[in-house]
């Protein structure tokens, strides 16, 4: 393998930034994957605290229950790579200001829970930041059916998508499929940051 290519990729990732809306099952796992890959700066948005029930799929630990998710994920990131710049915003995303803290990142990842919020977020980002690549996930409940996941591209929107999956109101969320979708999103982010062919 050509070491200079790896060096070039590492340098590019180090100066890259990704914003993640929601630090739950999708967001926490995607953030960790991006840190391990070497992305230099993350902007993480979530208002919630870690609950014991989150530990079935989210990248937190038992001794972090009660902490803000942003604080907890920052601690976990620091244990992997303390050089990663992590900016956190403990706010609830609201209609009309979804893009507020995401203006200057290279790529945005939607990692929200409810379909309503996902739709509002995507519509607003596309309207206000039309040139910004946005990655989203839809259809992540249940287990099995890896083959149903695919990447759906609509202009600047890149989706990890399984249209046959049920809503989380009707089915359970299990760690493997949630983590697959989260890592799918992180993988799409690398593709957008680095280009398809190295």
């Amino acid at each position: 393998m050509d070491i200079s290519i790896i060096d070039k990729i590492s340098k590019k990732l180090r100066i890259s930034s990704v914003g993640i809306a929601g630090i739950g099952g999708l967001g926490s796992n995607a953030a960790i994957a991006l840190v391990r890959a070497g992305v230099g700066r993350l902007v993480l948005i979530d208002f919630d605290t870690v609950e014991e029930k989150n530990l079935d799929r989210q990248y937190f630990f038992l001794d972090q229950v009660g902490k803000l998710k942003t604080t907890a994920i920052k601690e976990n990131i620091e244990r992997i790579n303390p050089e990663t710049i992590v900016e956190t915003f403990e706010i609830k995303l609201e209609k009309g200001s979804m893009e507020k803290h995401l203006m200057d990142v290279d790529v945005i990842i939607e990692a929200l829970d409810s379909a309503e919020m996902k739709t509002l977020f995507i519509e607003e980002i596309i309207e206000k930041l039309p040139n910004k690549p946005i990655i989203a996930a839809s259809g992540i409940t249940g287990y099995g059916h890896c083959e149903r996941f695919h990447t759906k591209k609509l202009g600047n929107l890149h989706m990890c998508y399984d249209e046959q999956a049920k809503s989380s109101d009707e089915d359970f969320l299990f760690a493997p499929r949630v983590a697959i979708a989260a890592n799918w999103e992180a993988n799409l982010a690398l593709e957008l940051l680095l280009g398809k062919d190295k």
Partner: protein
Amino acid sequence: MSITVNGRTLDWIKDETVTKLLKRMKYTFPLIIVKINKKIIPRKDHNNCIIPNESVVDVIHMISGG
């Protein structure tokens, strides 16, 4: 006179709006993102956005879970 919706070829119907097309396709999911010829059509415009002949339409629905 046809349009393509999620890869399927359908007859084009004059003055058909996004809302009417979604009904014709039996896409009843409440939270949907629609793109016509590379442009995303916000939900507020679904009732009055008319689909031109030979459009390429993509419809994705958002499913809760995160």
